[in-house]
């Protein structure tokens, strides 16, 4: 499992387990780490491409299709996506399909903890997670065309004031890389060790 594959194609299910988790590829490592730590052998994981972060309109039809295809093979399905830019459409689709999804507007919120995130006044913060720090060039820099047109940077990021790295793991190498990301974007830097936040709590409930 490498980050490029998770970004571009996702992750197929292992076809082992009673409950299928349909997740964003950007969450694969975190979900698998929680699964391993907690011994949740009955949870299977399938991921959709992480770079759909840039194309949220692709998420809802793909989740709908997967739920329809897989529901006969599992006792239950849980969607490990927050709203993620779908404007409430993913929640509406999950309601129609009778499956649950993780609460919150996006992963930055549930990693921080949705209540804690809502209480923050950080309108001008740009967030990165472990995944997006590792994949900064493929996930942020290149899709925005900044390798070819660095002069566009301030059009994208001119209204932001700081980059907040929400660290899931306490990894000094990722900290250094995130600092470099902030420098490249021309933003102040802040690191917060969030761990898995509401993701761990929610999956614990799903695992039963």
């Amino acid at each position, binding site marked *: 499992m490498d980050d490029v594959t998770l970004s571009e194609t996702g992750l197929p299910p292992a076809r082992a387990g009673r409950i299928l988790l349909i997740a964003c590829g950007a969450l694969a490592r975190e979900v698998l780490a929680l699964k391993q730590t907690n011994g949740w052998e009955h949870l299977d994981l399938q991921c959709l491409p992480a770079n759909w972060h840039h194309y949220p309109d692709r998420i809802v039809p793909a989740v709908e299709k997967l739920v329809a295809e897989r529901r006969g093979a599992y006792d239950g399905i849980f969607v490990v996506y927050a709203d993620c830019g779908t404007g409430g*459409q993913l929640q509406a689709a999950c309601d129609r399909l009778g499956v649950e999804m993780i609460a919150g507007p996006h992963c930055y919120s549930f990693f921080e903890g949705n209540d804690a995130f809502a209480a923050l006044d950080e309108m001008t913060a740009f967030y990165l997670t472990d995944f997006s720090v590792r994949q900064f060039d493929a996930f942020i820099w290149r*899709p925005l065309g*900044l390798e070819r047109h660095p002069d566009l940077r301030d059009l994208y990021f001119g209204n932001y004031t700081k980059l907040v790295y929400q660290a899931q793991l306490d990894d000094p190498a990722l900290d250094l890389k995130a600092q470099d990301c902030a420098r490249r974007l021309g933003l102040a830097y802040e690191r917060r060790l969030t761990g898995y936040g509401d993701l761990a709590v929610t999956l614990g409930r799903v695992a039963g």
Partner: protein
Amino acid sequence: MADEDDIILSELSDDELVLQMHDDLYDGLKEEIEEGVNILIGRGWAPYDVLTKALVAGMTIVGADFRDGILFVPEVLLAANAMKAGMAILKPLLAETGAPRMGKMVIGTVKGDIHDIGKNLVAMMMEGAGFEVVDLGINNAVEKYLDALEKEQPDILGMSALLTTTMPYMKVVIDTMKEKGLREEYIVLVGGAPLNEEFGKAIGADAYCRDAAVAVETAKQFVARKHNQLNG
């Protein structure tokens, strides 16, 4: 030194130059657009014709290819930058020579939201289409919208949001307009990546516009309808 294959814009006929400007706009070539605008003005073109036939028509192609997934945000931004440079030359000339006035729009990103790329594209295309645009910028509370409506007396209020968490604020603005008896006086258009037509209807907007080109066409239709009602 110029390559042999380099195109000398000043040597092209008017029709060829306009087509070349469409290509240059598509490629985001700011300096070439500025040069093309100056050449056409130098040849006696009316500023309004340069705007519509060279710039707006070129940007419409960019908009269509963005909608169809052929172009992406970086290319659209570069094209918009090039168009903006051309418009900067034309604006004072348009003020002198006059141009058809389509209407007036107040536009801004809603409270809690700092994203303005889409809003800026809409503002630019609306200006290109002959609308006077008052841009309130980002993070606008309802009071700021209402103050601007009172002061500017526009035909249209445009609101933009990129976040699922901020888009409901559009309803706060519309509901406040209703409470104050102002809603029917203005055309309200909304847009932004997480929005859709259903959301636009649910909050009481006149229309959801999925991109800048749709915003321009929708604005034209609503303004024409409003004028017809007033004249009827």
